[in-house]
């Protein structure tokens, strides 16, 4: 179980390989990775601001909550902050469990909660300037299903 908040890039393939290499009693591994979309070429870059201290605390709490809800043999959250270019990876989660339903549900839960409950804020740079990304109603609504 681990949570990492960092400015540096991470190696998604290596993280997936390492995560799945220690399955224990798990038969199912799910990973998610979020990538900066280029929005049809209009996005020049992105800056992610966060709240050091609270970020780690919020992610650890979300991960602990997932472990109380599902029987996970392992879980991982990596989230970057700072400047990011289109095509770069923003974050990833990984979950491992005995059967696939739990691994999928836990990965979606982690994503839903870290989207709306971990203190990150995205600012996008385009030719028109920089603008803070607005929270989407559907992201808030997604929490209702858990």
């Amino acid at each position, binding site marked *: 179980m681990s949570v990492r908040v960092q400015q540096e890039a991470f190696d998604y393939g290596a993280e997936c390989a390492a995560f799945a290499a220690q399955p224990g009693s798990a038969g199912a591994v799910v990973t998610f990775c*979020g990538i900066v979309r280029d929005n049809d070429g209009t996005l020049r870059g992105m800056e*992610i*601001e*966060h*709240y050091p*201290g*609270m970020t780690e*605390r*919020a992610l650890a709490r979300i991960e602990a909550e997932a472990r109380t809800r599902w029987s996970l043999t392992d879980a991982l959250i990596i*989230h970057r902050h700072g400047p990011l270019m289109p095509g770069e990876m*923003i*974050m990833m989660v990984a979950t491992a469990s005995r059967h696939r339903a739990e691994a999928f549900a836990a990965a979606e839960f982690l*994503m839903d909660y*870290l*989207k*709306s*409950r*971990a*203190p*990150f*804020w*995205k*600012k996008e740079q385009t030719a028109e300037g920089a603008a*803070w*990304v*607005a*929270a989407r109603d559907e*992201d*808030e609504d997604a929490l209702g299903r858990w």
Partner: protein
Amino acid sequence: MTLTVLYFAWLRERIGLPRESVETSAATVADLVEELRAREERYALAFSDLKAVRVALDQDLAEFDAPLAGVREVAFFPPMTGG
């Protein structure tokens, strides 16, 4: 009491600083917001629509009616957009 007050994202930009020390006797977050609003136009603007503002007390999400007794760090920020 003396609080450390933090601002993030567009709240930080509108108010023009990331953190400050605030001497206050506000009982709740809402009282503190009223005091800040009364200070200067940039605070009034930043807090003009509280539906667009979230608050954390000592790094836990809280409501605007939460009491400030015992709190040391208050953070204001827009809805989060991670992931």
